[in-house]
């Protein structure tokens, strides 16, 4: 399948199917993800939403038995084409994980890791990147005096914001978030949500969440996944006040779960 650049669309997904071994987890979905918007993916456990997210930066490649068919076009490039540079793709499509996963290094080194991989050696430049990344995640004031202490000395919420800062440091275009608040307390969650709102001015964000209220709060578009299919995809405000599909309605009002 050929890909073409579509205006204001970051990802154009067509007929995507994903299986683990013999088990099909995504059964043919199509979605266009708008740039500079937050797209939330909701659905019950096992509906394939995390799997879907992982295909967008090809982190699914780390699962040996996975098989992906169909097409995912990222800004006109088929990311599953044989010629795709996966490392470059992951520079553009960053990821934040469910549990904060800082490296066992200093705060500074955590953020400098990505830029260093890209060959930034200049100390001054690295300092600049670290500072601006931490500022963008509203972490700078909290950690500027202890950039050399271990990332593990931070609280869970701070660690997660550090991980977001780390992703920003490589100047991505898209940020994938896999239940980024599931291990955090409500205040830390609220801070991350504020941050997401701030980041969407500059980045395209796709967030998988178990928390429907969170999806309703942070996203502009919502996709409801159920057993490997996209049941409904549209404006978040519509989905949560007046969904078209009965299944969506039943899920978000808790009439099945």
């Amino acid at each position, binding site marked *: 399948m050929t890909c073409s650049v579509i205006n204001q669309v970051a990802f154009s997904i067509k007929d995507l199917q994903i299986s683990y071994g013999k088990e099909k987890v995504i059964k043919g979905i199509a979605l266009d993800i708008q740039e500079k918007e937050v797209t939330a993916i909701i659905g019950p456990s096992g509906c394939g939403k995390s799997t879907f997210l992982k295909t967008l930066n090809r982190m699914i490649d780390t699962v*040996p038995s996975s098989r992906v068919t169909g097409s995912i076009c990222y800004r006109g490039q088929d990311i599953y084409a044989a010629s795709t540079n996966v490392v470059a793709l992951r520079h553009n499509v*960053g990821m934040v994980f469910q549990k904060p*996963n800082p490296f*066992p290094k200093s705060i500074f080194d955590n953020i400098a890791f990505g830029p260093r991989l890209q060959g930034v050696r200049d100390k001054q430049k690295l300092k600049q990147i670290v500072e601006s990344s931490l500022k963008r995640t509203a972490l700078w004031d909290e950690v500027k005096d202890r950039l050399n202490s271990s990332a593990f000395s931070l609280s869970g919420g701070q660690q997660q914001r550090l991980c977001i800062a780390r992703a920003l440091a490589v100047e991505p275009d898209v940020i994938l978030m896999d239940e980024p608040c599931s291990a955090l307390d409500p205040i830390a969650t609220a801070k991350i949500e504020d941050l997401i709102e701030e980041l969407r001015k500059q980045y395209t964000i796709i967030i998988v969440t178990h928390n429907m209220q969170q999806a309703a709060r942070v996203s502009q578009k919502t996709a409801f996944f159920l057993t490997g299919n996209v049941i409904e995809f549209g404006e978040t405000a519509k989905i949560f006040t007046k969904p078209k599909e009965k299944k969506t309605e039943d899920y978000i009002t808790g009439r099945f779960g």
Partner: protein
Amino acid sequence: MVKPEQLRNGKKLHISEMLGYGILLLFALSSVAVLVYFIGSIASRGLSSISWTFLTEVPRVGMTEGGIMPAIVGTIYVSLLTLAVSVPLGVGSAIYINEFSSQGLFNRIIRLSIRNIAGVPSIVFGLFGLGLFVAGMKLGQSLLAAAFTLGLMTYPVIVTTAEEALKAVPQSFRDGALALGATRWQAVRHQVLPAAIPGMATGAILGLGRAAGETAPILLTGAAYFLPRLPQGVTDQFMALPYHLFILATQHNQISVVRPLAYGTALVLLALVLLLNGAAIAIRLYYRKSKQW
């Protein structure tokens, strides 16, 4: 439900349990007792031989006098050389198996081979070393040949502990690095290996302890019966504590005369091995405490 007033006769209820617990405790304590008795008896008989002369001089007068310095140094040399062989080999294999090879069958075959190597009797290693390194590669009876042989023998320990150390590194470190655009090697090099090094060091030191205490493999590949000087290079023969002990205990023509020296040698060897194990435990404890994930 238990009636509230019955809550108080807990002791009576569990008397059989206490009995079982006591028996198991006895078993566990017996192992400690054996070790204490063992160390105690070696120490009490060997301590009288230990002196500055004993530790720093070469054996004299048909090994009935003087010290065991060449054996101590030889053991240290051969052990370190062994590490130089087995650590790169073992850690490299472990990284490959754990981080890069994704084929289940291939990995199973490699792991099976390693387990089999671990099960080979040490004298067979000696024979193998004699055939391959001493004769085949023409290294002669030497430190190098012995180190290669011991290196092969400790390889399974190193691989297994290195793999355990790698497995203990959370997957999230790898994912985090990969998601930032690291290649697999970069992820391993910068995030996984640094986190695994303490575990690997522990394994290496345990391997070292094992190498230091072995007699059979070096018997055929490089240990000298009597060599009252330090080895001149890696191709030279050497004396080693376990082999020296073996000679003093069974091969000497005045066994009863050298018996105290044998105990002294045993004590030194034991101290060396315990010291190494102690170091391994210390490293493990230190990193377990400072481990943050």
